[in-house]
């Protein structure tokens, strides 16, 4: 039975289920005040609607708490961190919490996405408050049940305890049919009282992952499910002509060839049979002539081409003419792939006007809306049941394959599984756009007097279904493309950042950190050259140019910390070794890294990476470290090895290994030091992607004298 108390505060009771708590934040004055306050801080994420009951926690009979996470676990450790936040205020042990993905039919629906490094920072306050409210409701009920005044009752480990008596949360729930809300807003704990937050607890999903339980979209099944192999365009811009399915439909195991306006699929009893039959399908593709080549892509993404928007301008930015004190350097980064290990997979079952969709998606609400728009099925009849994701990195923010599976299930009257082949992931997904940067600056008495960054990039946010189509007109500049492109050296009085929007004839979009890696590579490499020209130590030269406000102090803090742990500029290094430093502030989290390198057989060998990060309040330090290690490894991979080109309308290469990525042999020792300023968490997943490429490049420059201006670095040979 649904029971809404005081309007939208939702409480559910019932046999076998226990107490379930959900929230339509607007219900109560104290809550409303809290919300307004949060909104003022720009931190509000409203996980509720007026019409749909959305339950966050359920107290179960065994006194465990089922927590429906609106944020999806893609490896970033969000389940663990959110569980720690809940455990802290609900006063249960972490082992009492079972975290599951929130299905759209039942739990909170994330109006945003899982991405942008904000899963913890955007939910922390609300989640803490919700958990505290539930704790207070349980305590208040215990007053009546135990006959003990509230002030003598404390909540701990899932029990309300006082005067030698105790009741488990489950016992309280079992004896309660009417719930009331506390009259006052619960007091949240002060950070110094935290017992769970800040502890390096093991991930809650560790055992499932080590035992390889079937938790991913590719693993999703329904009884009697059939498998579809979807034919996707082999070239950019190819138009499908006549489909000859004669041979394919006779292939063993094939149930039907389904032809839709925008795709063709072979549905078979097994994946293998579907894939084999697909090879027999004859389709006349009309390809654009001439086919797209890399040269055109490189010609499109150029400073001076496309539409110009000035993103930042302060002071006087003239006077950048060539001269003894001026430097100009251009940088390039290539097309890149997400290459997440789990290809996109989805299982859909349509029956009686309703559909259940099990899949890996970073964008639950958007996925549901897209299915609804494409099929006409009402959103409330679409239940998205998110699975764990085998990596996200931005690749699962656009999920048109969900709609394909739904349509196929409608056609077949059976549950259908659709899976991308690896080659399709490269060709038919979307890519990180190539970029071109031009940095210019002038020194005066060893300080930067004026600096300019021009960025040319393919689209990142623009063109994405997550961003309104009018955004380019209103915003001018693509906030994804220039992410990390502004100067964090705010002591430079005269500065400008110009963005050239260069539209490519294929889909480029979100990739971990968006423009952060490319822009940090350009800016931080350039700053090192300026430091060298000014004959100054790279760390003190950076600090000189950072404005020492609160944000700047944190950046200075991580620079000093990374110097402390690495001994940069202070420690004698073995012959042939060199260190490089770089820093960035992303999602308000500053990170500094030092890379120690040598040259081995003419190639760069990264020996060790030191990383200092200040993500504010740390929920799980081991999780922060894992994210730093991961971002450093991914950034090292992307900057040392990865590059895609376009040949004859196709993404090349389109398989692993040919698309060279870091392997275990390429990954150095990584040492992470966490600073923690402030009492609120900030983002972690992307910021450490920024400094790694320039830290390596700066180390190589100081060792060899060669300034690498192009990613990937494998193109440089040293003798």
């Amino acid at each position: 039975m649904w029971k809404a108390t005081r309007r939208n505060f939702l409480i559910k009771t019932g046999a076998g289920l226990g107490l379930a708590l959900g929230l339509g934040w607007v219900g109560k004055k104290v809550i409303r005040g809290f919300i307004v306050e949060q909104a003022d801080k720009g931190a509000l994420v409203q996980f509720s609607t007026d019409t749909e009951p959305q339950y966050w926690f359920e107290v179960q009979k065994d006194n465990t708490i089922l927590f429906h996470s609106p944020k999806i676990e893609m490896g970033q450790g969000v389940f663990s961190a959110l569980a720690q936040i809940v455990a802290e205020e609900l006063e249960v042990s972490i082992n009492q919490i079972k975290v599951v993905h929130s299905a759209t039919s039942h739990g909170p629906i994330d109006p945003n996405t899982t991405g942008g490094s904000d899963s913890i920072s955007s939910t922390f306050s609300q989640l803490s408050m919700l958990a505290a409210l539930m704790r207070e409701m349980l305590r208040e009920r215990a007053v009546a049940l135990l006959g003990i005044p509230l002030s003598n009752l404390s909540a701990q480990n899932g029990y309300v305890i006082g005067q030698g008596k105790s009741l488990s949360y489950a016992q309280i729930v079992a004896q309660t049919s009417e719930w009331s809300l506390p009259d006052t807003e619960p007091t949240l704990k002060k950070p110094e009282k935290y017992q769970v937050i800040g502890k390096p607890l093991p991930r809650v999903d560790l055992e499932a992952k080590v035992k390889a339980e079937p938790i991913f979209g590719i693993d999703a099944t329904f009884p009697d499910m059939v498998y579809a192999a979807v034919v996707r365009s082999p070239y950019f811009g190819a138009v499908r002509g006549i489909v000859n399915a004669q041979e394919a439909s006779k292939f063993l195991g094939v149930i039907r060839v389904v032809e839709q306006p925008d795709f063709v699929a072979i549905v078979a009893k097994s994946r293998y049979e579907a894939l084999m039959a697909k090879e027999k399908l004859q389709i006349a593709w009309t390809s654009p002539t001439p086919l797209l080549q890399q040269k055109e892509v490189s010609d499109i993404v150029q400073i001076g081409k496309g539409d110009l928007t000035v993103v930042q301008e302060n002071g006087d930015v003239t006077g950048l003419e060539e001269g003894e004190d001026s430097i100009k350097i251009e940088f390039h980064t290539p097309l890149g792939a997400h290459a997440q290990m789990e290809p996109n997979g989805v299982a859909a079952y349509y029956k009686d006007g309703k559909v259940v969709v099990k899949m890996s998606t970073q964008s639950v609400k958007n996925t549901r809306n897209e299915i609804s728009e494409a099929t006409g099925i009402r959103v409330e009849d679409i239940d998205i049941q998110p699975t764990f994701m085998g990596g996200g990195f931005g690749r699962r923010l656009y999920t048109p394959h969900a709609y394909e599976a739904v349509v196929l299930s409608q056609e077949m009257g059976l549950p259908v599984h659709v899976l991308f082949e690896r080659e399709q992931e490269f060709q038919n997904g979307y890519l990180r756009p190539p970029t071109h940067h031009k940095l210019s600056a002038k020194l005066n008495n060893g300080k930067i007097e004026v600096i300019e960054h021009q960025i040319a990039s393919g689209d990142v946010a623009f063109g994405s279904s997550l961003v309104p189509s009018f955004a380019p007109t209103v915003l001018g500049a693509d906030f994804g493309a220039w992410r990390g492109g502004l100067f964090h050296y705010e002591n430079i009085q005269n500065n400008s950042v110009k963005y050239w929007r260069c539209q490519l004839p294929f889909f480029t979009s979100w990739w971990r950190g968006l423009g952060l890696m490319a822009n940090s590579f350009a800016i931080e490499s350039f700053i090192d050259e300026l430091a060298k020209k000014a004959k100054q130590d790279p760390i003190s030269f950076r600090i000189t140019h950072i404005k020492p406000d609160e944000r700047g102090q944190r950046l200075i803090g991580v620079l000093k910390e990374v110097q402390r742990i690495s001994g940069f500029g202070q420690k004698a290094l073995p012959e042939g070794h060199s260190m490089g430093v770089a820093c960035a502030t992303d999602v308000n989290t500053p990170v500094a890294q030092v890379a120690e390198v040598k040259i081995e057989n003419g190639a760069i060998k990264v020996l060790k990476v030191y990383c200092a990060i200040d993500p504010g309040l740390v929920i799980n330090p081991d999780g922060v470290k894992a994210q730093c290690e991961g971002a450093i490894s991914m950034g090292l991979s992307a900057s040392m090895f990865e590059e895609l080109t376009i040949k004859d309308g196709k993404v090349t290469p389109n398989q692993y290994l040919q698309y060279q990525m870091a392997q275990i042999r390429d990954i150095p020792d990584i040492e992470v030091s966490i600073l923690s300023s402030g009492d609120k968490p900030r983002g972690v997943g992307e910021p450490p992607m920024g400094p790694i490429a320039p830290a390596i490049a700066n180390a190589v420059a100081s060792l060899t004298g060669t300034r690498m201006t192009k990613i990937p670095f494998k193109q440089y040979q040293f003798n």
Partner: protein
Amino acid sequence: MLLKFDLNGKSQSVDVPEDMPLLWVLRDTLQQKGTKFGCGKGLCGACTVHLDGNAIRSCSIPVSQVQNKKVVTIEGLGQGQLHAVQQAWIEEGVPQCGYCQPGFMMATADLLQRIPNPTDADIDDNITNICRCGTYYRMRKAIHKAAQLNQKD
């Protein structure tokens, strides 16, 4: 075609096309989902299993080649308990997304059979799977730890 092989210590018979890759037989016919599809070309190692005690990439082995042989997957690696490699993976907190990990654990278990106490160079030369989350740093520690755990037993 009717085929028989030993899967995780139990005799298994399947009626599937003989050229069907072992990976899809495991995943779709036998519903053993622990073995993962990454590339289908034997390049990434997500589908690594043991065939007669040796690590192979099951996406590129037709099921006919495992006829009457012994296949061990991640589900059977620890024979009902956690294998030393799995235990080490937990102790070092290796997985992030977790998708590539079964393949890495199978590759590591195979390495430790051949080289019980591998050096870093042995690890570099033998562990060639791909992980995108970047858990390699912890994996190396976990491989050394698994070697230690094995020697304690």
